[in-house]
């Protein structure tokens, strides 16, 4: 356990010093600041107002940028170390592969999750100071969803990192996965529905296995389910399933998915040549 914490701690320290971490933190912190400056809390659109509206906007942008941030910053963690011979030296010390791999995952998870959480905390604190009502149910739901989404993409990133030999290929695969999942949020799904090329159940199934779509639907599920706001697929899902079951599913499924890919990555990491 000592070595596991050591790897996690050193990875965390190394990441915090990196330029990408600064950009990453500024983007999420900056988003919140921008929303306050733009007076998002004062506006009212489709029934959402105050901090609820701000958090909803934050989460909708996060759906798009969080996965790609996690993928591009994490996908090179092991393949990059292998590429530039860091792995060759660091693993010449008596550290087990299990400790190294999971220590890296823990360290990287804290690095990617804390800034997005911190940005939400800033929003709540600032809203509280301004005298806005704090929507705690939305805050806790989004905290859980972000935790879950971060886990899913971290697991996928470590999976890619475990089998790819060069960092460039790892980045390419990461971009492809992001674009693919993003397209299947609603854009491709709606066009498929309109063209009636495939049956409805299959479309719903595709939506339900996409962690980004689950995240998106769960994020708006606390509000009145209106077709114009949510999109047809989300509307259909919430119509056919109770809201609490769906929220539970949208938190548990990405967690399980992330763990599954992380375990798969570890299995490959153990069986492949290390350098």
């Amino acid at each position, binding site marked *: 356990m000592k070595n596991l914490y*050591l790897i996690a701690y050193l990875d965390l320290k190394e990441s915090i010093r990196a330029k990408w971490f600064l950009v990453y933190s500024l983007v999420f912190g900056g988003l919140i600041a921008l929303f306050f400056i733009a007076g998002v809390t004062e506006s009212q659109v489709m029934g959402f107002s105050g901090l609820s509206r701000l958090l909803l906007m934050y989460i909708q942008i996060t759906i798009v940028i969080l996965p790609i941030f996690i993928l591009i910053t994490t996908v090179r963690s092991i393949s990059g170390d292998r590429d530039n011979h860091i792995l060759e030296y660091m693993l010449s010390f008596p550290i087990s592969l299990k400790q190294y791999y999971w220590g890296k995952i823990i360290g990287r998870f804290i690095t990617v999750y804390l800034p997005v959480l911190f940005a939400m905390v800033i929003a709540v604190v600032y809203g509280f100071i301004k005298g806005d009502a704090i929507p705690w149910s939305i805050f806790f739901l989004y905290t859980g969803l972000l935790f879950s989404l971060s886990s899913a993409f971290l697991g996928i990133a470590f999976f890619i990192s475990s089998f790819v030999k060069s960092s460039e290929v790892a980045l390419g695969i990461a971009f492809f996965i992001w674009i693919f999942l993003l397209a299947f949020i609603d854009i491709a799904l709606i066009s498929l529905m309109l063209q009636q090329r495939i049956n409805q159940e299959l479309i719903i199934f595709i939506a339900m296995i996409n962690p980004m779509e689950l995240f998106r639907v769960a994020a708006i599920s606390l509000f009145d389910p209106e077709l114009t706001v949510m999109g047809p697929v989300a509307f259909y899902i919430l119509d056919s399933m109770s809201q609490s079951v769906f929220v539970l599913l949208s938190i548990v499924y990405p967690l399980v998915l992330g763990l599954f890919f992380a375990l798969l990555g570890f299995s490959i990491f153990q069986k492949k040549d290390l350098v």
Partner: protein
Amino acid sequence: MIKVSQLTKKFGAHVSLDNVSCEFKKNESIALMGANGAGKTTLIRSILGYYHPDNGEVLINGLDTIKERVKVLENISFVPQLPPPIKLSLDELMQYISVSAKVQRDLILYYANEMKLDINANLHKSFFKLSGGMKQKMLIAISLAKKSDIIIYDEPTANLDPNARDDFYRLLKQNEEEKVLLFVTHRLEEVKDLVNRQIYMDLGKIISDEKA
């Protein structure tokens, strides 16, 4: 101490090690030589447990280098040919080594001092920002402080100036007893006084093995 038995390692169609067998015993200092692509680095990496062999095995004190890699690595010090661009500071790197390999920090500082490297002045500097020579001195200091039974050096003096090389060989002389010292080198004359066995490799095979 190290027993390599019928080791074969292929990368695609290329055979990097072709049925290699050899044994390295206590108090042996070996110069491992050969042209580029002869299989020297593959052999070393196999000893360190990095490669899964296509055939054969490597045992260190009877332990398999892949199945028992943590126990095996407790007894090995390794310095690569090119220092990797580790982003940890020297302080963090020493922490990593002290915790994982139970190496005394004071001992690293002692050997670094003997190699004329002032760690304290660079304690919070990233390892990769040091000069090539300083990095190599740091890795050598760590390898000696680890007090391993097996020390593997892959062209360790490539970045060192003549004075630093003298310091390195002096320290090695003081630390070679009861150990296996394995040098990968292209310059035999530099390590001639240190080694008592010379192995030449070519095309993945050992073509000559001479003991002094």
